[in-house]
């Protein structure tokens, strides 16, 4: 049998059309969440872990019946860590009928999504899309640039630095601090907060370096480490995440740089391995909303379950809170309509993953929760979990109650008329 070129062309077009036609069917019996984060390039290692974490959480909720009898489904979209591509992928997700977007890596991209979603919702009443931010911590997202459609589950950079600097002010061995951060909105937010807060709380500390480097593009930090070394710093503050943290510490290990590190995301993929390699026993401190070794029963059970399935530990307790609150909000609103989910989430209280109460502040959609400062190193009997097979684990250094993490907001929320 021989086909003419027209038939072949028609066949090819038909074949190509199939993937686009697929998502429409069955859109009603599942609640789809588009996960828009880097799944290739320098951010892939961390994006991949996030995707699997969300899938694990969706499975957990589905096993308990989902929400309103519907199952959750996570669909991954690769934003290649690029603002333009992020919006293309969000549009693609919306086109295939998804109305809940989640993203976390990169505040610059978070701002782009928040802006896009807000405008999209103005133009498309009745087809609103909601955006859940699980990790982008630039304070501006819940202040000047806040939006009704944006909800943030991670403590913002100012909250974290407030807690971290309160802890640092009592550590008398700190004399000279070096700042190294990624050169984009988040890194700048960390830098600014660190400069003002350290100066206010410990004026005697000298800031001997203030570095901004390109985001996730550097494969060898040796030149930067040489500079830190030359500055004579005894402590480094960094907001670096993903590869930028792991490679930074790896280069420090190679050069034999021994300083204390005050970080936001030391626990990310590759971080623990590098810290062990550098021999920084309990010299790296990280601020987060939870660590594995808190001895809180339900969290320990969860930790065991996720480690049994994947070869990583839970890096995103905030994602757990986010998914559980989404489920609760849908049940409360008796609808999976984004507008109703948004209204239900405002002010909602929940027992957070690592114990204690948290709530979604209605004023700015910033989740308020207890925070923990932990150091990484050798474990005692009280710390059952290690990281990345290093034998070392997280140990609690200080807890900040939810009430003490509250900072004022400048947000003037525009709520949809209902």
């Amino acid at each position: 049998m021989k086909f003419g070129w027209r038939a072949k062309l028609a066949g090819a077009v038909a074949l190509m059309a199939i993937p686009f036609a697929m998502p429409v069917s069955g859109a009603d019996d599942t609640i789809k969440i588009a996960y828009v984060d880097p799944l290739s390039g320098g951010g892939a290692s961390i994006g991949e872990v996030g995707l699997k974490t969300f899938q694990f959480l969706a499975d957990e909720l589905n096993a308990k019946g989902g929400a309103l009898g519907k199952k959750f489904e996570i669909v991954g979209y690769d934003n290649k860590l690029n603002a333009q591509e992020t919006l293309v992928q969000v549009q693609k997700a919306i086109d295939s009928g998804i109305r809940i977007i989640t993203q976390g890596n990169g505040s610059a991209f978070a701002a782009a999504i928040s802006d896009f979603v807000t405008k999209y919702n103005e133009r498309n009443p009745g087809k609103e899309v909601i955006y859940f931010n699980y990790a982008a911590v630039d304070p501006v997202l819940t202040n000047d640039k806040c939006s009704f459609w944006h909800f943030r589950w991670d403590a913002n950079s100012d909250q974290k630095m407030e807690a971290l600097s309160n802890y640092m002010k009592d550590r008398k061995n700190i004399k000279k601090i070096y700042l190294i951060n990624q050169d984009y909105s988040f890194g700048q937010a960390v830098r600014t907060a660190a400069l003002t807060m350290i100066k206010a709380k410990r004026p005697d500390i000298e800031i001997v370096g203030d570095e901004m480097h390109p985001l996730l593009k550097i494969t060898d930090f040796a030149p930067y480490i040489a500079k830190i070394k030359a500055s004579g710093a005894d402590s480094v503050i960094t907001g670096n995440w993903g590869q930028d943290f792991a490679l930074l510490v790896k280069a420090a290990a190679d050069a034999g740089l021994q300083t204390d590190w005050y970080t936001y995301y030391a626990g990310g993929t590759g971080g623990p391995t590098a810290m062990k390699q550098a021999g920084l026993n309990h010299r790296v401190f990280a601020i987060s909303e939870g660590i594995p070794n808190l001895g809180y029963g339900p969290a320990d059970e969860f930790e065991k379950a996720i480690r049994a399935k994947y070869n990583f530990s839970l890096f995103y307790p905030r994602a757990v809170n986010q998914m559980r609150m989404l489920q609760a909000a849908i049940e409360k609103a008796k609808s999976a309509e984004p507008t109703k989910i948004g209204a239900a989430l405002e002010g909602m209280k929940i027992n957070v993953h690592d114990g204690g109460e948290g709530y979604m502040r209605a004023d700015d959609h910033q989740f308020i929760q207890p925070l923990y400062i932990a150091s990484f190193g050798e474990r005692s009997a009280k710390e059952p979990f290690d990281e990345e097979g290093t034998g070392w684990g997280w140990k609690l250094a200080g807890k900040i109650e939810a009430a003490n993490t509250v900072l004022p907001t400048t947000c003037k929320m525009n709520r949809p008329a209902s």
Partner: protein
Amino acid sequence: MLELVLVSTLNGVLYGMLLFLMASGLTLIFSMMGVLNFAHASFYMLGAFFGFQISLLVGFWPGLILAPLLAGFIGALIERYGLRNVHRHGHVAELLFTFGLAFVIEEVVQMIWGKLPLDYRIPPSLDFSAFTIFSTNYPAYKMFMLLFAIGIFVVLLLVLTRTRVGLIIQASLTHPHMVGMLGHNVPRIFMLVFGLGCALAAVAGVIAGPALVTQSNMAALLGPILFVVVVIGGLGSLAGAFVASLLIGLLQTFAVAVNLSFADVFGLLGIHSNPVPFLSDIWFVTVAQVAPIMPYLLLVLILIFRPTGLMGTRDT
């Protein structure tokens, strides 16, 4: 300060030598065939991934030999069965061919090894610190990278200047038709040079893989800088590529170490207030922050003031 200068010099020379391993192949291929090989950095990536795979089976050292051979062989095949056919359609077709090839290689690598960074380890026999400068340790593996790259450079130089093969290659660089008339198989020389160039890039990949990050975007990260090196050195000039590689390596490393901004420079001259307020962003940007774009700035300047490059003899 002296410590910073010494360590930065070592780091800069090391990075420069890695660049040279790649730039030498690229510039050889260009001067011979007039092909600007956009896929050149992809062979660097292939080298790293092959090296990783072989190191899993038989260890790092066999990988150091086998991976470049394999990549060189693939390069030669691509020249013989791809590029040679495309060649008939002129330079634009060749350019597009290598451009497409870079994407194909990246996709294939992603299909086989995935998009995540691989756990390509430094061989245990080199996992210690070689020496200490004041208080900074310098890893033995980096020292090995440096010496190995210099070794390759010396061998390459000897082959090109002291052997018969080198003589023919040099002759084909400038007078391909004459070499053909003298009875040499110029297409085969082209194929071998292409393969050799790819193998050199792969060598760089194998030794850089464990020290830097082995992942599918490593070609894209390094590709652009490679062209900068070749253009600054002068297209087709091996010596130029060497000088430009070291220049770029040192420039990038030292730029990171310098905290100078316009504000500081003018401060030294006694001007303390910013004369143009809306340019305050530029006023306070330090050299360290613009380090990544410095090579490209140099590229633009070179193209304006000396289009042939530092040591190039002909225009493109």
